[in-house]
């Protein structure tokens, strides 16, 4: 075929080999004296990210999609590719893929067409995968990323990494290798799977890491996928080449597979860049191949060379009709698109004037940022709301191994607490006690204050005045100092007053009363 990109679609594990050919990392050809040093090379990286689309049922049949179920229970005649079965497209999966495309600024194709990608592998029940070859549903677009800043509390540089395409396909099953045999679990087979292909626009392992982080956040924001890498909901392959800094031609690329966590992505790519520079510097040549990265050992090994590459024999799937995606359809999905994370961050800076460190906690989790906005709007104290959430709420939830969704404290209660604190009617220990009770019961702070008698109301004016008089009388030295102009000397009376009030006195009122009595004495 001459149309279409050269290597679209999920690359399957490759032709099955009786004994996998191991190509040592120092694949050396001709030894020549190096003319450039390690820092004279830059990396060119493109990522192929597979994202499972969060739908109730599978891509081409009604059976449920899911994770962690007993082996081969999420199957039906279609999933098992029994003789005579036919695929029927899941429109919800297409909806979510269009949504991903709209969120990332892609052009949505007017016609969605399905192709068969033919290869034999035991985890692929039909021995072909239904995918999209030359007419992917989304073209172009970009992912906005944030590079690491100069310090943790300083925002890093933002970049837009252009995308080549996004297409939709079906996931394969899973092989579980035993000592003498292999078992297949088809539960994952047929799960809707997006492939998001970036342009070779990333230059370092850190950029790749930032790209993946940003992409994950957008997918979770859009409700497109949960992106749990442990459950295989997001998987990443990288195409990596190196070239002398200042040149523009692309070097020979190596495909690195099985980067199954964000840290493996960073480490695997860093390792591969180092490996390639090492090969070139020692006079060797990079061979076009697919390598498997083992995150446990930090070592990669060759899976197959270019000569063993598949001929997938793509052709349009005659069992599925092309689907027209018209303006009405796109508009409906557009209406469901949330604000993008970095747009929200920029808005938070302007609308709430909160610092970067707070936004970087609040924004990546859209439930948390919604919670923040609700609280901030109700109490009118954005900074305080942000601090309460980022520090106290998250700490307590983490300690209780709970989640925001399960939190008993809702924004209205938290906003009320912030108002109470601001009014100065609660002592610090009382605030802590109220918040702890709110975490336990979810009750309104006013109710807790009333029922526990924590408020200033617990002490009458006369009672308070009596404690203050006693405190001043007990420490004439401090009284003299205060009168002599040392304002901080007033603090010496506050401890005894609070002790007498068992911590329930209104600190503001104590201060006022002490000043009045000291002035009069």
């Amino acid at each position, binding site marked *: *075929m*001459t149309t279409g990109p050269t290597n679209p679609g999920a690359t399957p594990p490759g*032709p*099955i*080999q*009786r004994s996998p050919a191991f190509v040592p990392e120092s694949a050396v050809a001709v030894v020549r004296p190096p003319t450039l040093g390690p820092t004279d090379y830059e990396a060119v990286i493109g990522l192929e990210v597979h994202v499972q689309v969060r739908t109730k049922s599978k891509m081409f049949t009604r059976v449920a999609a899911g994770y962690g179920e007993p082996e081969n229970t999420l199957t039906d*005649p279609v999933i*098992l*590719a*029994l*003789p*005579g*079965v*036919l*695929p*029927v*497209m899941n429109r919800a999966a297409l909806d979510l893929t269009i949504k991903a495309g709209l969120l990332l600024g892609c052009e949505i194709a007017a016609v969605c067409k399905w192709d*068969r990608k*033919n290869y*034999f592998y*035991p985890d692929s*029940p*039909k*021995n*072909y995968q239904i995918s999209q070859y030359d007419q992917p549903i989304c073209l172009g677009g970009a992912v906005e990323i944030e590079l690491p800043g100069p310090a943790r509390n300083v925002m890093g540089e933002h970049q837009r990494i252009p995308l080549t395409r996004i297409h939709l396909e079906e996931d394969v099953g899973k092989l579980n290798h035993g000592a003498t045999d*292999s078992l*297949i679990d088809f539960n994952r087979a047929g799960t809707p799977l997006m492939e998001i292909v970036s342009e070779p626009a990333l230059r370092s392992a850190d950029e790749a890491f930032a790209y993946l982080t940003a992409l994950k956040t957008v997918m979770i924001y859009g409700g497109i996928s949960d992106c749990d890498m442990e459950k295989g909901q997001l998987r990443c392959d990288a195409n990596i080449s190196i070239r002398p800094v200042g040149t523009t031609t692309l070097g020979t690329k190596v495909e690195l597979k099985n980067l199954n966590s964000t840290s493996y992505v960073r480490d695997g790519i860093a390792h591969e860049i180092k490996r390639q520079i090492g090969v070139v510097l020692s006079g060797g040549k990079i061979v076009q191949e697919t390598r498997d990265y083992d995150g446990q050992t930090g070592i990669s090994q060759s899976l197959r060379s270019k000569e063993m590459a598949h*001929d997938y*024999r*793509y*052709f349009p799937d*005659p*069992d*599925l*009709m092309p689907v027209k995606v018209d303006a009405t359809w796109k508009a409906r999905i557009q209406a469901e698109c949330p604000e993008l994370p970095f747009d929200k961050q920029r808005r938070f800076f302007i609308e709430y004037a909160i610092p970067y460190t707070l936004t970087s906690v609040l924004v990546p989790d859209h439930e948390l940022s919604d919670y923040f906005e609700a609280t901030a709007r109700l109490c009118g104290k954005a900074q305080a709301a942000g601090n309460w959430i980022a520090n106290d709420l998250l700490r307590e939830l983490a300690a209780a191994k709970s989640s925001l969704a399960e939190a008993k404290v809702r924004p209205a209660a938290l906003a009320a607490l912030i108002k109470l604190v601001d009014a100065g009617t609660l002592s610090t220990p009382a605030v802590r006690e109220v918040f702890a009770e709110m975490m336990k019961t979810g009750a309104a702070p006013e109710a807790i204050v009333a029922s526990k008698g924590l408020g200033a109301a617990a002490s009458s004016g006369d009672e308070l005045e009596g404690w203050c008089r006693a405190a001043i009388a007990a420490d004439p030295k401090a009284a003299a100092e205060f009168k002599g102009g040392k304002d901080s000397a007033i603090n010496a009376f506050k401890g005894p007053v609070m002790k007498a009030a068992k911590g329930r006195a209104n600190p503001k009122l104590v201060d006022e009363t002490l000043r009045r009595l000291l002035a009069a004495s």
Partner: protein
Amino acid sequence: MTGDLFYRSISELSDGLARGQFSAAELTQAVIDRTTRVDGQVRAFNSFAPDDALDQARAADQRRHAREVRGPLDGIPVGIKDVIAVAGQPLTASSKMLANFVSPYDSTVTARLKQAGAVLWGRLNLDEFAMGSSTENSGTVKHGEAWQTRNPWDLSRVPGGSSGGSAAAVAAGEAIVSLGSDTGGSIRQPAAFCGLVGLKPTYGQVSRYGLIAYASSLDQIGPFAHSVEDAAITLGAIAGHDPLDSTSFSTAVPDYRSELKQRRGPWKLGIPKEYFGEGLDPEVGAAVAAAIDHYRKLGCEIREISLPHTKYAIGVYYIIATAESSSNLARYDGIRYGHRSADASDALDIYYKSRAEGFGPEVKRRIILGTYVLSSGYYDAYYLRAQKVRTLLRNDFLAAYQSVDAILTPTAPTAAFARGATASPLEMYLNDIYTIGVTLAGLPALSLPCGFTRSNLPIGLQIIGQPFQEANLLAIAQAYERDHDWSQRRPALS
């Protein structure tokens, strides 16, 4: 009086059932007895289960007793080509690859036949995976020998293919009607060879869900019957949109049987000059010419038309059909079901050996051909170009339908040929020359008996209709059938 029940029409039988002249169980028993008596010679069945059939028949009798009759097919034994899934029955495609496979699910057509009360009777033989024109490619082994279907009119001849078993069973009285599938002519050519009405519906008119795929963009299920009316009744039971088949059409399905009474012509009928050239047997040509004359006498306007791209049809077919089949048959790998080589040592070995052992030579030939035409560097030259020519072929027909209602041609160049007579696969492929273009164009067509050769072999007339105009097609066929008795003749089997 149940002696010849197995040769009666559906309307006669449902009438007899309604009058209580015989029960569905008696009718089914008559078909079972007939099958037991003659199938050793005809070899139409890969397998059958008399007890199961009788259970279905008794259920039909109970419905009748309870006055819950589901229509004209209730209690009628219908034979099913062994590529159409019936829950709990073998589904072998006449291949060693699936020799032991039992389907856990129902195809849409058989689910609908059950809904109509039909007795699903037996698994009918075919060319392995529907690849062939004589049923000689059947990979079925029964009673320790190769089990190739024979023509009931002359057991030394082929019944046609690939639905040879479906045609022979009805012709021999082993089923009242049957279902076959047509990819390049696999219903019409065996219908012609066995003296039956065989209808290939418009692509998309009948669900393919549960039909083992040969060439997905061509495959259609259709009926075999002794009469146009029986074909109409059977088609009516299986046609219509199916949410499980994305290529099935959502046009309304008319009551074909009552439409027959209303559509009386006269019609404008086209005669494509390209279908009457070299290779057409003179006896077949004469019978078809006589049929055309009859239509003229009925007041139909006969026009010569041209379908100029006809000569490319076979080439185009063998690119598209083999390409699709190479992908469709990839699932038969010995991993999840079907034949697995006993001495395979690893996954690759399972693929190589199971497929080498499980598939017959014609299936392998087409998989190799299809793999080749789809491979990198050849796709544009073969598959893509074939699809373009396919559009031209369809346009030929659509242009002709500007001036005619239907098209008349021979179904096959010759009557049934002798078993073992066709030497090369290419020669065999040419047998489908009149049927393949129609399938590529996705059009409905039927074959109708229009005479016999001097050696008493049936001859078929092909009538090609407009998309989704099966009702017209059936009415045109019945206009001829009404005035002839070819369909009344039965082979002399003992």
